[in-house]
C-alpha cells in the first residue's frame, strides 16, 4: 500500500473515484519511481528525467470540510446568543410568502425593546424599511449576488445591533427555497413559511427547506376560499420529511392564527434556551 494515498485502494474508499483510474488509485506516478520525502514535504514520486511527477496529498477531513468555517461561525453565534438569553430564529421561504408580514405582526405583539431583526436580501432595504417604525432594531444585510445568508454575515450583523435587553432575534433569510436551507446561521430554530398562492406541492418540491424546520407556518389562509390549495397534500408531504415541526395556519396580515404563532414562539424560546446550557 502506498504511504501517500493510504487506504484508497479501489473499492475501499467511499464512492467510486478510483474506478476509472485502474489499480493503485490516483497519485501513483508512471515510470516506477518510489514514493519518498524531501525535508518536511509529503512523500511524492519523481518521474524519469528528474521532472516532478504527480504528488497526491490527502487532506484531514476536518480541515477539508468546505462548509466547516460556516459551522464554526454558526456555533459561535449560537453560544454567544444563548449566553445572553437571546433566541435566534432563521426564517426561510420562497419570495413573497410573507416573512416580512409575519415579522411585522410578531414585532407588534412583542415588547419593542426585546426584539431585533436582521434582514437578508440580494438588493434594496425595502423589507427592512417595512419593519422600521415598530420600535425594534432592524438591520439590513445585502448579499449582492449571494442566494443565501451565511453565519459569518450574521455574526457581523450582530456587531451592528445593541444586544442588551434583547430576547428575540429574527433573521429573515433571502427569499429562496433551495439554498438557505443548507446553511446554519447559528439559529436556535428554523421557521419555514409556505403561503397558499405558492401552491400545495412546495413541500414535495423543496423537501430540504421543510426537513430543516422546527415549525412550519402556512400563511395567507384567508385566501383558502379563492385558491385551489389542498392542505392535506402539504400534511402528507410533511409526514415524509418532518414529523417533528408543528404546522401553524395563519394570516399574518389578517391576524387569524397569529396568537398560536406567538404561543409557539414563547414556549420555543423557553425550551431552546433551557436545553442548551449557557
Amino acid at each position, binding site marked *: 500500500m502506498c504511504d501517500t494515498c493510504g487506504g484508497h485502494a479501489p473499492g475501499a474508499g467511499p464512492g467510486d473515484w478510483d474506478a476509472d483510474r485502474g489499480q493503485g488509485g490516483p497519485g501513483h506516478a508512471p515510470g516506477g519511481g518510489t514514493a519518498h520525502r524531501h525535508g518536511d514535504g509529503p512523500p*511524492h514520486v519523481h518521474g524519469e528525467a528528474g521532472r516532478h511527477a504527480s*504528488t*497526491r496529498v490527502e487532506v484531514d477531513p476536518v*480541515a477539508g470540510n*468546505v*462548509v466547516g468555517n460556516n459551522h464554526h461561525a454558526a456555533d459561535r453565534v449560537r453560544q454567544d446568543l444563548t449566553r445572553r438569553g437571546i433566541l435566534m430564529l432563521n426564517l426561510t421561504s420562497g419570495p413573497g410568502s410573507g416573512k416580512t408580514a409575519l415579522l411585522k405582526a410578531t414585532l407588534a405583539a412583542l415588547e419593542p425593546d426585546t426584539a431585533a431583526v436582521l434582514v437578508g436580501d440580494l438588493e434594496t432595504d425595502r423589507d427592512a424599511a417595512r419593519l422600521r417604525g415598530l420600535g425594534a432594531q432592524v438591520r439590513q444585510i445585502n448579499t449582492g449576488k449571494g442566494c*443565501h445568508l451565511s453565519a459569518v454575515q450574521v455574526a457581523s450583523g450582530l456587531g451592528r445591533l445593541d444586544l442588551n435587553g434583547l430576547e428575540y432575534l429574527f433573521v429573515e433569510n433571502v427569499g429562496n427555497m*433551495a439554498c438557505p436551507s443548507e446553511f446554519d446561521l447559528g439559529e436556535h430554530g428554523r421557521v419555514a413559511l409556505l403561503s397558499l398562492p405558492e401552491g400545495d406541492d412546495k413541500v414535495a418540491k423543496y423537501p430540504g427547506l421543510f426537513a430543516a424546520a422546527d415549525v412550519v407556518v402556512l400563511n395567507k389562509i384567508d385566501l383558502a376560499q379563492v385558491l385551489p390549495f389542498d392542505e392535506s397534500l402539504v400534511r402528507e408531504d410533511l409526514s415524509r*420529511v*418532518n414529523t417533528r415541526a408543528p404546522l401553524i395556519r395563519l394570516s399574518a396580515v389578517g391576524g387569524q392564527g397569529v396568537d398560536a404563532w406567538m404561543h409557539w414562539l414563547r414556549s420555543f424560546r423557553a425550551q431552546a434556551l433551557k436545553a442548551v446550557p449557557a
Partner: protein
Amino acid sequence: MHELSLAKSLLRRVEAEAAKAHLVRVTAVEVEVGTLQAIEPELLAEAFKAAAEGTSSEGADLHLASVRAEACCLVCGEVYEPRWADFQCPACGLAEPQILKGRDLVLSAVTGEQAD
C-alpha cells in the same frame, strides 16, 4: 444554486492545501459530497472551473465521490439512510432524524506537481 459559493470555498481549501504541500500546479481535486447536500455535480464542476481560472488550480480535474447519508431516528433510535425527499424512519415511520452523515462537502485529496 449555491454551487458558486461552495466552489469558491472549495478552491480556498485546495489552494491552502496545495501551498502547504508546495504544489506549484494542481492537477486533480477529490471531493466527497454527501447525498443530502443539495448540489448538482455538473454545476459544481463548472463553478469550480470558473473559480480556478488564473490560480494554480486552473484546469484541475474535479472528482466527486458521493457519501451515503446516515441518520439516527430521534424517536426510536433506528439508524438508517435518509433520502433526499424521504426522511421517514423505516422502523417507526416518523421523520425526526438527526443527520449523522450526508450533509457535508469535504476536500479529501489534492494531486499536483511539487516544487523542490
